[in-house]
């Protein structure tokens, strides 16, 4: 935890090295590899957003697709209907997500809905919203919202129309920002409050920590971060369907990374995203060779089980120890 200054420790140097390699990546790889890297970084970013709520503050959400969807639809719909830049739309998405998540958090925490029940409450809200968007004409209902794609020679960063490498740098910047932000949260008073609440809510309350307020802050920050990821998905994939963007599978996928990597750790979501994407890609290739459709998913499920049995606390705490970075912050 005592990381000292940001750039002096060994883990920081390793991270900077990783960052340098990643920022040069578009020069050396093709678009397909780049899109895989984007998938990894996107999953890492979303995992970090979830980690703030679950890993730091211990509030289990299974409905984060809700905030992805709200962020994506807010930015996407404003762009299509009014030509508004996603950089303005993203604030609309964050505002809506903050509002919705405060309602969920307030209702849940006020009425003492906890643990699994709270998680199911978040699923219920996400599914509710999915069906709602399926019937809302202004955002295209179930036929979806498609962002216009035009051939252009240069990247338009203001409107986020352009090449794969532009999106790559954007998501890389988001991931770095998310990491630094998470780190700064964890190192502050708020981070310690959250961890106290996570470990024992009653004890935290007895110590005078305003439990309700800090749980709300965690939920709201996590939702806002997630909705930025939603904006990215909207403009990167160019089409939005309630069926897929709000789907429970997206919520589940989102939390696999941090759990595999290590819930509550800073680097866990990133490592988890790398492991899961590597697994997914390997089994896709394997599945093509075998020629049977379900094989990929079955192997994926078995690997998840195996990791869970061998390293129930995630891979990162173990790897960190092996790399000798234990004293070097999370």
């Amino acid at each position, binding site marked *: 935890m005592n990381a000292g200054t940001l750039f002096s420790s060994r883990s920081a140097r390793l991270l900077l090295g990783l960052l340098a390699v990643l920022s040069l990546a578009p020069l050396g790889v093709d678009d397909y590899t780049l899109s895989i890297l984007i998938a990894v970084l996107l999953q890492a970013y979303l995992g970090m957003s979830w980690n703030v709520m*679950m890993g730091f503050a211990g509030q*289990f959400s*299974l409905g984060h697709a809700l905030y992805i969807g709200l962020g994506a639809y807010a930015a996407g719909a404003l762009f299509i209907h009014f030509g508004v830049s996603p950089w303005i739309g993203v604030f609309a998405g964050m505002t809506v997500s903050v509002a919705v998540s405060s309602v969920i958090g307030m*209702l*849940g925490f006020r*009425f*003492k*809905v906890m*643990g*699994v*029940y709270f*998680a*199911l*409450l978040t*699923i*219920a*809200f996400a*599914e*509710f919203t999915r*069906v*709602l968007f*399926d*019937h809302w004409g202004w955002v295209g209902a*179930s036929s979806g919202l498609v962002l216009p794609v035009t051939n252009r020679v240069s990247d338009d960063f203001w409107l986020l129309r352009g090449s794969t490498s532009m999106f790559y740098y954007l998501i890389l910047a988001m991931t770095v920002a998310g990491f630094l932000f998470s780190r700064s949260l964890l190192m502050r008073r708020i981070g310690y409050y959250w961890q106290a609440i996570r470990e024992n809510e009653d004890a935290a309350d007895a110590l005078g920590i305003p439990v309700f307020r800090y749980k709300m802050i965690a939920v709201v920050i996590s939702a806002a971060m997630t909705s930025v990821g939603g904006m990215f998905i909207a403009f990167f994939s160019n089409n939005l369907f309630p069926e897929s963007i709000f789907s*429970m*599978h997206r919520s*589940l996928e989102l*939390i*696999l990374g941090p*759990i595999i990597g290590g*819930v509550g750790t800073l680097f866990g979501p990133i490592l988890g995203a790398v492991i899961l994407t590597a697994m997914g890609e390997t089994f896709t290739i394997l599945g093509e060779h075998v020629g*049977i*459709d*379900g*094989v990929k*998913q*079955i192997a*994926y*499920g*078995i690997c*998840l*089980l195996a990791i*869970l*049995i061998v390293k*129930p606390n995630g891979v990162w705490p173990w790897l960190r120890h092996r790399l000798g970075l234990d004293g070097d912050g999370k």
Partner: protein
Amino acid sequence: MDATFFLNVTSSGLLTGLVYGLMALGLSVIFGVMRVVNFAHGDLMVVAMYAAFLLFTKLGIQPVPALPLVAGGLFVVGYLLQRVLINRFLGATEHIQFLLLLSVAIIITNVVLMVFGPDARNIQLDASFESYSVGPLVLDKVRVIAAITAGGVAALLWAFFRYTTTGTAIRACADNPVGARVVGLDVEKLYAVTFGIGAACVGAAGCLLLLLVDVHPHLSSDYTLLGFIIVILGGLGSLGGALLGGILVGLSEALSGVLIAPSLKSMFSFGLLILVLLLRPQGILGKKP
């Protein structure tokens, strides 16, 4: 919209709801005893439905007579699942248990997908087209049979927990696992039996539901969610609550389907869930924790 039509829709929703309730009963038993949230519940349901489908198409055994077979098979699956895998994770945090069951669900769904393909299957019985008329009411014969059988299985389960030694022992484990261990109960084994019973409920419900709807592999997550909605509505751990929740969801699906739009029916179920979670988090028949 006349009263007879309304009454018919209501009664068919009520009957389907009892089958839903039986499925949720399994979930409720598992959570009530082990505090494990079975995220693979819908997957077990789909497995049961396919098993009943196979027994009918290959061996000509109708779903109701096949029920003991399928329930027995699912009992074994559930028993082994708990014994081999889940017992290792009893003390683990919720999200770890959740991921464990999710991995199991991914594996089951895709094995089913691999074996049966993605197409929807259904079975046609002679009884499928018959119905009973009670005054102005017209009830599908299969729906009545399914509902009565579901009620019967639920009654059996209640009697098991109430009157048998094993049932009492399981209730002891639910109340106080440490105490149960102190008096010499084999808690791990009883947990495995409990998961087996929960899975057997799903097996029975799967047979019955196959009489009413088509089955395809991707139904699993829908049924998992449906199960959760029902048990939370009724109150986790309460047998009567699961049936009541099932009936409520059956009714709300049927009524919102005809009164508003079929595609909106799940929104009403979720709306109901949110309402109950906020107004009475322990469920309608649940006891305060």
